[in-house]
């Protein structure tokens, strides 16, 4: 039998179509969907998202937090990273080990504002799980400097969440202040740049 050079089954465009998603995401039609950070489910509900989605997202974040929060073998080490009174004893468990470990408090969770209902959320969670992330929403932490941190989960679809060490906590997309714009694009023409 000859080797196939194309897939028989191909996933569709998940963003729907390149037309609607361009509209939705280019900012022409109001606020584009993006990642939204909530400190708790109530804040999420007040932001106008569905109550079920907010609660499911929060529960997932808590679960991910319990299993995957950064752990320190002393309170001082944890507080050095996350600040005084920002750490607690980690529950003993599969990933926490038997001794006494400390972990920072959950500062909140991040979800996509594009999620409208529980079905969307379930799809989102399934997608994340398929990618090996395990949970729908992402727990976040704040370090002493106030930077937002998200844990790095390892492994593929069938591995459990790995408790990240402190070195794997990287600040990403930190908030800052823009001092200049309109940098690139000066050589633009009405034609595209496809080669």
């Amino acid at each position, binding site marked *: 039998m000859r080797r196939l050079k194309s897939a028989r089954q191909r996933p569709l465009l998940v963003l729907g179509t390149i037309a609607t998603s361009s509209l939705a995401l280019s900012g022409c039609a109001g606020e584009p969907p993006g990642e939204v950070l909530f400190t708790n489910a109530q804040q999420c509900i007040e932001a106008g998202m569905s109550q079920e989605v907010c609660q499911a997202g929060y529960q997932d974040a808590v679960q991910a937090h319990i299993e995957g929060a950064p752990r320190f073998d002393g309170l001082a080490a944890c507080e050095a990273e996350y600040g005084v009174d920002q750490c607690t004893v980690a529950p003993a468990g599969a990933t926490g080990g038997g001794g006494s470990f400390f972990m920072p408090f959950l500062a909140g969770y991040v979800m996509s504002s594009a999620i409208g209902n529980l079905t969307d959320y379930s799809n989102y969670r399934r997608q994340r799980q398929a990618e090996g992330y395990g949970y729908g929403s992402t727990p976040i932490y704040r370090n002493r400097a106030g930077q937002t941190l998200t844990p790095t989960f390892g492994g593929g679809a069938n591995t459990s969440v790995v408790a990240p060490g402190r070195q794997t906590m990287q600040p990403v997309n930190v908030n800052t202040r823009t001092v200049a714009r309109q940098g690139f694009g000066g050589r633009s023409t009405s034609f595209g*740049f496809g080669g």
Partner: protein
Amino acid sequence: MERTTLPARPDWRDKAREVGFGFHEMYGEPYWVDDAAYTFTLEELETRIEAPSQELHEMCMDLVDDIVGNEQYLDRLAIPSELRDVVQRSWERGDLHLYGRFDLAYDGTGDAKLLEYNADTPTSVFETGYFQFNWMTDQVERGALPADTDQYNLLQESLVEAFGEFPHDPIFHFAAMLDNEEDRGTTVYLMDCAVQAGHRVELLDISQIGVDAQGRFTDLRDRVIDQCFKLYPWEFMLREPFSRQLVPSGDVFVEPAWKAILSNKGLLPLLWERHPNHPNLLPAFFAGDTRAGELSEFVRKPLLSREGENVTIVRGGEEIASAPGTYGEEGYIVQGYAPLFRSEFGYAVLGSWVVGDRACALGVREDQSPITANLSRFVPHVILG
């Protein structure tokens, strides 16, 4: 390789509209061809296109390693000296790349010849990976093509897989010139592939990229951009005033800065120098090289040029075609002439895709002129037999 005609799908314009493929007509000319196909046999496709593309990519990657630390080569490629660190750093860090497209001349006989490597901002990715594939499955379903018809097309799944290799923690920003429909459509399609690979994404215009006091790139919500696909050429980025920001933060881009080496037509003489008489290469020299004068049939191309601009074809001492344009100040190369596949519908150039480091798909473009430009048409292909 042959060109065949078959009935167009009666509803193909609706299908194009449904998926937002607005650029099936561009600049007032038809772009997508629904009632024709280029046909290949499996053996022809594997031995003449797929295997050589894989080999060419590997030769190119070896060459980057040679060029990136060599000031003389970087001079020849007109890489600005103050930004060579950015290019070198991205290579030494092993910054991941996403995709590239070889343009090949192949007239149905002999070896396919490399015309150039669009390794930085290749387009026609949506047409190749998505619309061409749906065209084939529709035509098979309609009975216009046999049930065992195949296509050399693992582009979409390869893109999803390649996006999966990039870090998932930061938002994957996507920057392009959003007022250009083709560029926007291409970028949004790639963004869709990134979403399928589990990324959070955000789209912005290339001119909307900001910078903070520490020199980090920022988005419209004042967040630091940690990872950014850009459909905007490195040769422009390296030459704009904002390029000074690349020194502290230029590592966030996909394609990475080292792609500036491969998307430069100076690659062609360097490849020829290293692999003389390779069956898939054409003799190529920097303009001014005495060996260039020995070519009786040749094509003169600027080091940096897009959409066929400033390209001249000379055969038998006569200029048979030339395209106007605004490129050329960085210099030219001269490349031996290779005949393209030709039919009553025009000349065809093969676009052979590499995603990650794997050759994976084909798209064919056709033009009335032997210089393929932005008014060329996209014609789907199939494997029969």
